């Protein structure tokens, strides 16, 4: 357990965060962008758990933050998918370029 330093866990979560950012930059399909956001949220959760485990083992704050983030991610995914399905009904496409009138 202790021979893996905390920095290596942080490296893994940073790499996962930027993989999610790459997906968010390159994808134009709303569902795949949502998947990239899920990856980003998960990398943040890994950070919270690792800090709780290594630096402040006498408290449980990191665990609670992770639980709240997971809950909010579930709510966010449900709302986003409702919006996507409604957009598909009216525009017959879920590409972000086709939803341009949201800008104005």
């Amino acid at each position: 357990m202790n021979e893996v330093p905390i920095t290596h866990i942080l490296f893994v979560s940073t790499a996962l965060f930027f993989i999610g950012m790459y997906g968010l930059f390159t994808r134009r399909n709303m569902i795949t962008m949502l998947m990239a956001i899920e990856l980003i949220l998960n990398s943040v959760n890994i950070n919270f758990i690792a800090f709780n485990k290594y630096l402040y083992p006498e408290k449980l704050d990191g665990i609670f933050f992770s639980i709240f983030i997971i809950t909010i991610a579930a709510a966010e995914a449900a709302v986003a998918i409702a919006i996507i399905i409604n957009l598909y009904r009216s525009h017959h496409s879920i590409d972000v370029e086709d939803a341009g009138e949201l800008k104005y």
Partner: protein
Amino acid sequence: MSASAIIFYCISTFILLTGILSVTTRKIFRSSIWLLFSLVGIAGLYFWMDMNFIAAVQIIVYVGGIVVLIIFSIFLTQKAGEQMPKAITGRKVFSILSVLAGLAFIYRVISLNEFHPNTTTVVNANVSEIGTQMLSTTEHGFVLPFEAISMLLLAAMIGCIVIAIKSKPE
């Protein structure tokens, strides 16, 4: 290198590989399945850190809930076997460059920072401890965010129903 370290590096390469495949594959259904593998790998990482409750919540909520929801919405909106169009090369190059720059910056910040791990105490994260602290109103209790999150979940549920409801043609 001990067995625990080897297990950690195996799990992290698994997570990163499936994550990369999930954001680069051009078939949307495969992308969601790779995302599922990545989330299971993250649950394995929580098990490796002895956080059993969080790992169970991760598997139940993400694998059992969100990925199934994403797969349902793919079936409702896309032709699952079809390939998505390729990203523009300029955008791809720009994204890779900016992502690598950010990665290098954060790596440098992390490796320069000195962490002082607390090795004397072991974290006590069993379910009864978490439940007691979640609903306690004392100094380190979390009952206020718990109530706020419950209101947010109710609002999100009602909002989903209102958005997705079929309006009558007028």
